[in-house]
């Protein structure tokens, strides 16, 4: 089964995106999942087997080819891999390769997640200066983490699909496209 988790607090937007979907769609406004699974961008997919073992760790897999021109990723091949895992239990990656394939979060990336939570908590209390201070700190601590930098754009009145995004994308490319997950699958 699929469990979709929105690393997002915009419930109305997620409701629109989830229209017609029958599997659970969960809201992770506090980015708990990105801390527990060391997730740094979306979409990130994790295959979890019947015994709570991770068969395929953090994997940049897509539902459609909407972003294929941008990412070069063929979602059909990825779907075949998922079907094989569902039917035959073969995720296409040995557990030796899977263990340690995802880099743990650095202490800065860990702290960035906490400051992100402080920022939204302070905003909710009406402390805008405190909110800004903590968003700034989070961005400083994890400058190439999309779940920090891009996720805060709409929360600060920015456009996550606008110039700010393209600037960040360029910066991220220059840094060697850091991603907490497997590559080449």
């Amino acid at each position, binding site marked *: *089964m*699929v*469990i*979709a*988790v*929105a*690393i*997002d607090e915009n419930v109305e937007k*997620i*409701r629109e*995106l*989830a229209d017609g979907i029958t599997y*659970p*769609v*969960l*809201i*992770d406004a*506090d980015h*708990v*999942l990105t801390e*527990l*699974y*060391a997730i740094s961008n*979306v*979409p*990130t*997919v*994790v*295959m*979890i087997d*019947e015994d*709570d*073992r*991770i*068969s395929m*760790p953090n994997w940049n897999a897509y*539902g459609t080819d909407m972003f294929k021109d941008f990412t070069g990723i063929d979602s059909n091949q990825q779907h075949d891999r998922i079907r094989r895992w*569902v039917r035959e239990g073969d995720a296409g990656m040995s*557990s030796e390769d*899977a*263990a340690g394939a*995802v880099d*743990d979060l650095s202490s800065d990336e*860990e*702290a960035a*997640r*906490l*400051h992100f*939570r*402080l920022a939204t*908590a*302070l905003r909710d209390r009406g402390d805008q200066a*405190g909110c800004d*201070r*903590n968003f700034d700190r989070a961005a400083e601590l994890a400058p190439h983490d999309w*779940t920090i930098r*891009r996720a805060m*754009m*709409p929360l600060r009145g920015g456009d*996550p699909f606008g110039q700010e995004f393209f600037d960040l994308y360029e910066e991220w490319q220059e840094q060697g496209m850091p991603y907490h997950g497997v590559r080449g699958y």
Partner: protein
Amino acid sequence: MPNDTAVLESTGTITEAQLADLGWTLKPEGLCQDDTCVLVPDRAALVGDAGLDLAVLADLLDRPVAVDTEAGLAAVGAPRSVRRGAVDELRAPEFALPDLDGGLTALSDHRSKKRLLVAFSSW
């Protein structure tokens, strides 16, 4: 879940009641959660006149902490061992999150099934 993340009122120290909210109790044998206790080698570093030192506490529990002293608010993360168990030992961390209808769904609600966890967003 006591091991979950938390945001709490603090400028660097917390009360015993806040410690209880985090799921822990300070006992003579150490910091205890149910039947499990963590030794407190330097009790004086943890317990002061102002309360329990949050940084020392977080260190003992191997959980990250961030304090905004100006706002008097602190965030405590999940135990690092949970994430290390995922990246190094492929143990899927448990979580429980609200669904679109306001109910809570946990990974363990669908135990004994293959689960494809998909993290996505609108941003």
